[in-house]
């Protein structure tokens, strides 16, 4: 079970949305992290065969992404997609099941199971046009799983979910990751921090990091500092270093920042988190943009 991306590139005119991305995915949960516009959706579309790469190739155990056999083992939740508003949730699931080639009897069983799993059992007979954003999103997650896919690609699956639903979703993904490849994209760190075995960080079309949480954080381990300083010192530090967090405190300004060495007298070294890493890259981008 191996999904291979080989120098996958997508250009829109002179804009490079994905830049020579090479990856090998095996069983497990992969979290694709990146700011809006980083190229996550573009990459996922190419992995689902609905967008042809400008160059490069994608295959699963030697089966090219353009083949029917590939789509047969694929489950995909697009970032934004349309439903048939006149269809009920049940109709919709049965229709997608037909598209995926499930026999009717099996489709019925799967539909019932999955609607229950995403807590839409009681809404099965309601028309989709009456659904809230979160309900639609859950229906989208359910349809992706209909064919018990070997490759599950979820583009911003937690968008529109409330905190309780997010937790349920995370648990679901953790359970399912045992025997398939799951790739989910997000720009919210907490979505994947605890469930992704491997974290992929994308920025401006490039894959800048990939590895386990520990490996990824290695980049800034020991470099995250917290301090509370007077306003003028705070201004000086903000100029010089990537700031992850700042708030006004009684004794001055509280700062959390990334720096190779102790930035000021009273700075305390703290444990780095994925959020720090993400914001670090994000702020580097902003700081260069501002110049």
């Amino acid at each position, binding site marked *: 079970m191996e999904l291979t991306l080989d120098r996958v590139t997508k250009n*829109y005119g002179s804009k490079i949305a994905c830049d020579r991305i090479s990856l090998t995915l095996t069983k497990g949960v992969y979290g694709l992290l990146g700011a809006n516009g980083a190229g996550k959706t*573009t990459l996922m*579309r190419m992995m*689902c*065969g*609905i*967008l*042809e790469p400008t160059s490069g190739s994608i295959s699963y155990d030697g089966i090219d992404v353009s083949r*029917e056999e590939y*789509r*047969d083992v*694929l489950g*995909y939740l*697009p970032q*934004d*997609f*349309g*439903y*048939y508003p*006149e*269809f009920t949730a049940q109709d919709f699931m049965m*229709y*997608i099941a*037909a*598209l*995926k*080639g499930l*026999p*009717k009897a099996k489709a019925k069983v799967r539909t019932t199971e999955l609607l229950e799993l995403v807590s839409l059992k009681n809404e099965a007979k309601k028309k989709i046009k009456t659904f809230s954003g979160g309900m639609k999103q859950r229906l989208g997650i359910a*349809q992706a799983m209909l*064919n018990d896919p070997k490759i599950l690609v979820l583009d911003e699956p937690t968008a529109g979910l409330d905190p309780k639903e997010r937790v349920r979703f995370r648990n679901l993904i953790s359970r399912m990751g045992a025997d398939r490849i799951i790739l989910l994209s997000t720009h919210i760190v907490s979505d994947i921090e605890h469930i992704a075995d491997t974290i992929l960080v994308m920025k401006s079309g490039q894959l800048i990091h990939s590895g386990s949480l520990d490996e990824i954080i290695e980049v800034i381990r020991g470099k995250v500092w917290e301090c509370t300083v007077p306003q003028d010192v705070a201004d000086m530090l903000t100029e010089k270093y990537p700031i992850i967090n700042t708030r006004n405190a009684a004794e001055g300004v509280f700062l959390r920042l990334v720096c190779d060495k102790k930035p000021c007298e009273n700075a305390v070294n703290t444990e780095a988190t994925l959020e720090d890493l993400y914001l670090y890259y994000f702020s580097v981008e902003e700081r260069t943009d501002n110049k």
Partner: protein
Amino acid sequence: MNTFWNLVSYEYKKIFKRKGAVITLILAAAVSLFSVFGTIIGYIYDSNGEPVMSRYDDMKTDLEYARELSGRAIDTELIMEASEAYSKLELNSAEKYTDSEEYENYARKYSEIYSIVRSVYNTSSELFDVQTFGNMTKEQADNFYEIRRQKQEQAIMQTNMSDAAKQSVIGLDSGVEKPIVFEASEGYTRFFAIMYTTGIIIAVAAAIIFAPLFSGEYTSGADSLILSSKHGKSLLVWAKLFVSFTLSAGLSVILTVLTYAECMAIWGTDGADAAIQLQVPMMSYPLTMGQCALLYSVSVFAACIMTAALTAMLSAAIKTPSGTIVIMSVIIIAPMMLNVSEDIVWLYKLFCLLPSNMMAFWCIIDSIQFELFGLVIRPYIFTPVFALVAAVLFGISAYRIFGKKQVN
């Protein structure tokens, strides 16, 4: 196979859940009904604006007269008899001759005979009017078929077809039995005229119903789900094309049968075996009205299938259903306002292969033949075969285009 039928049923479901499609179907049936019954509703008015009789009764009278003459050969005797009756008309410019008493009493009975012989005796230099008809000589009547033959030959020789095609068309006329036997056949006459409207209605309905066949998925945003699913780029596309084929075929058969039944019910079923020359006297095809009706219906059917397939292809290629509807409207309606000269044969014949012209009777029984690789092919054969081949090609293109659709 099960999956295929399952997908087909969902496609039908999607179409019939759209109000636009359902309204279009109902409208198509209504317009088609009205185009038939509209011609017999209302009254005939005299010069003072007073109603004289209902159009329906008027039509009945014509029908009875025609039936009285049914079975009689159009020969010297009948032509002279008709001429005699027309000679009784007192012609003055104040009144239309058809409003006169003499017309009602003597000539009207032979009006159909007049309209047949007129197209033979008419020449570009001299109009064969009512007066000329009344004064015609027995010798002229004797020469009816000879004059017809000469005129026909002349007309064909004047075209820009190849010699082989010309000879083949001229040769056809020997198959037409002479003298031509008169038969009441108003039902068929009407059918040939009204089927054009019916055909256009079916084409327009097909364009509206199938415009969203593929592009509806683009606009709804379901395309990313469909194209990433196992059957989305293959079986589903065939299912969609199958639906556009069956639905347009069904629509075409139902409306054709409806039009035929209405014509037969109102104007009578007489004339199935009558020669088509009663309707188009100069024609050289040895065909009966019934055969022409069948050939014409087959062409309209094929043209509808082609229109649906073309719509499907455009729907796959164009982002929105409205784009497809606009293009299809132009394709269907523009040729109705255009005229292409027969002088440039290939251009003229291409023009005959546009959907709306395929639905015109004159294009199906046209004397100008299709010529391809040295073969001379009758329009009523070439047209439906071409339409079906084109439909298959459009279908395959739709398949290719949708399968390669990029979501971005």
